[in-house]
């Protein structure tokens, strides 16, 4: 029982008579691992996220979160372990102030007041929103709203946080702050992270990537291994980062890059090794 989450031969459909949204999906996520899930619209990414914390249940197969099988009896325990941040920053607020909002989740889990105060402090500090205690959530920027949403999830002290396209509605600055926050959380807390995204540069931060296509796991590997599947990825409606594309052309023109660079720095370093003027 080493994996944190395990999907075993999951089949899921939203309605009788429809096609399977997920077909025989199996994978696992380890403690403290960062996994990115990518795939075209409708490939089953978000369905996976909703199955992970019991918002949906599979018709076939079994999902385990540590020693718990996810079902109607266990969902409350599962949700203490698995938190989720959604796409739309405006759809996940209940409190009239930032602090009330973070407290809401804790109240639902019956946390004593003294501990609530410490947890709220810690989680708002973790996302750099400690100066906004009494602000009204709807007056914050998109990036700030998402950070409060992350704090609300962290306060419950989950062992896995799922980000379901949590940066899709933000501008570049908002996206950058969320990615910094996620990295910071990952360094300071003992949590696993699942990011569901279309943003290829976000994928490069993950330890491992699961590529979904038409309801099936199409590929699993490190970001580097995934982006090596260049043409294949394009065939299933995905893309590769600019750096990967350029590297590809350079290699075809006889420049021998040793490893597949996935960001500007790696590419420049490789070129430097090959061509620096001594």
């Amino acid at each position, binding site marked *: 029982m080493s994996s944190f989450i395990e999907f075993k031969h999951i089949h899921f459909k939203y309605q009788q008579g429809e096609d399977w949204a997920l077909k025989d999906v199996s994978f696992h996520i380890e403690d403290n691992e960062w996994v990115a899930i990518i795939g075209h*619209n409708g490939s089953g990414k978000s369905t996976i996220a909703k199955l992970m914390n019991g918002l949906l249940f599979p018709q076939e197969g079994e999902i385990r979160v540590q020693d718990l099988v996810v079902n109607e009896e266990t969902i409350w325990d599962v949700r203490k372990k698995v938190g989720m941040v959604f796409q739309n920053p405006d759809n996940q607020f209940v409190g009239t102030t930032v602090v009330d909002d973070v407290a809401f989740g804790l109240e639902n889990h019956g946390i004593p007041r003294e501990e609530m105060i410490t947890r709220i402090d810690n989680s708002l500090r973790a996302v750099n929103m400690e100066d906004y205690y009494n602000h009204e959530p709807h007056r914050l920027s*998109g990036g700030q709203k998402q950070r409060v949403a992350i704090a609300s999830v962290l306060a419950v002290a989950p062992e896995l946080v799922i980000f379901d396209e949590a940066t899709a509605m933000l501008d570049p600055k*908002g996206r950058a702050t969320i990615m910094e926050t996620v990295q910071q959380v990952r360094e300071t807390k003992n949590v696993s992270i699942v990011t569901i995204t*279309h943003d290829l540069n976000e994928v490069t931060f993950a330890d491992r990537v699961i590529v979904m296509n038409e309801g099936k796991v199409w590929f699993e590997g490190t970001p580097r291994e995934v982006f090596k599947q260049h043409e294949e990825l394009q065939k299933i*409606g995905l893309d590769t980062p*600019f750096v990967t594309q350029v590297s590809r052309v350079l290699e075809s023109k006889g420049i021998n890059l040793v490893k597949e660079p996935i960001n500007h720095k790696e590419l420049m370093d490789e070129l430097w090794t090959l061509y620096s003027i001594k």
Partner: protein
Amino acid sequence: MDIIFNKVSHIYQPNTPFEFKALENVSFHIQSGSYVAIIGHTGSGKSTLIQHLNGLVKPTSGEVKIGDYVITPEKKLKDVMTLREKVGIVFQYPEHQLFEETVEKDISFGPQNFNIAQEVVQKRIPELLKAVQLPENILQRSPFDLSGGQMRRVAIAGVLVMDPKILVLDEPTAGLDPRGQKEIMDMFYRVHQEEERTTILVTHSMEDALKYADHVIIMDHGKVYMEGPPLEIFKDQEALNNVGLDIPEVIQFLNKLESKFHISIPFRGQSVEQLGKEVAEAFKRGDKSE
């Protein structure tokens, strides 16, 4: 139809504690038939700006001219429908605005409001479906049974059916996967070229601005911060960084080549393929001469 902003300011809730200056002294001239990208952070005034284009809001001071139609703070909007017939706006997440029972009814709703005869609309529909890449058999289906990408195309068809002279796009690809994004952007570009339409694209994507626009307006805190052809604008990395924006990745890459290896390759809109070839050749020449 040219679009002229002359010292336009827009203040929300003036003379109250909530007073907010969304636009401040904004002036520019957009030539008929051009493709303009408007870039800026959330809160920089982009949305307020585009709402002036079809008279959803009026300036607090200054003047907006869309062709012959003039919008000033003092005057009431006269025959605003004649303006809205010519300026089509595709708002963010336009699929949220679908409401009819069938795709066909939804597309026909706009024209009905402008008293365009049903026969005329019927004639346009096949061509329209082709433009947005939807099959004809979709017309009788409920828009709510479609996928997100299809719904967005239906909503876009509902704007294009009016054949607007000016097409305003507010982050039209948000939430789509990379292929969907490219398909939609290429579609708008075709629509732009075919009819000599003026296209205004509000975007966060520097890549799209570089690829499609012939003019870029950078907004910051309600003001025009920079303006010019994309290649000019993206030369000034520092100025863009100062307002929290970045330059397109391809230009970042070329700048790094220049500073690290003294290899200078000007960007002229090359494809990645072409660019890679030029870079490889430059390296090899350098290698040999050493």
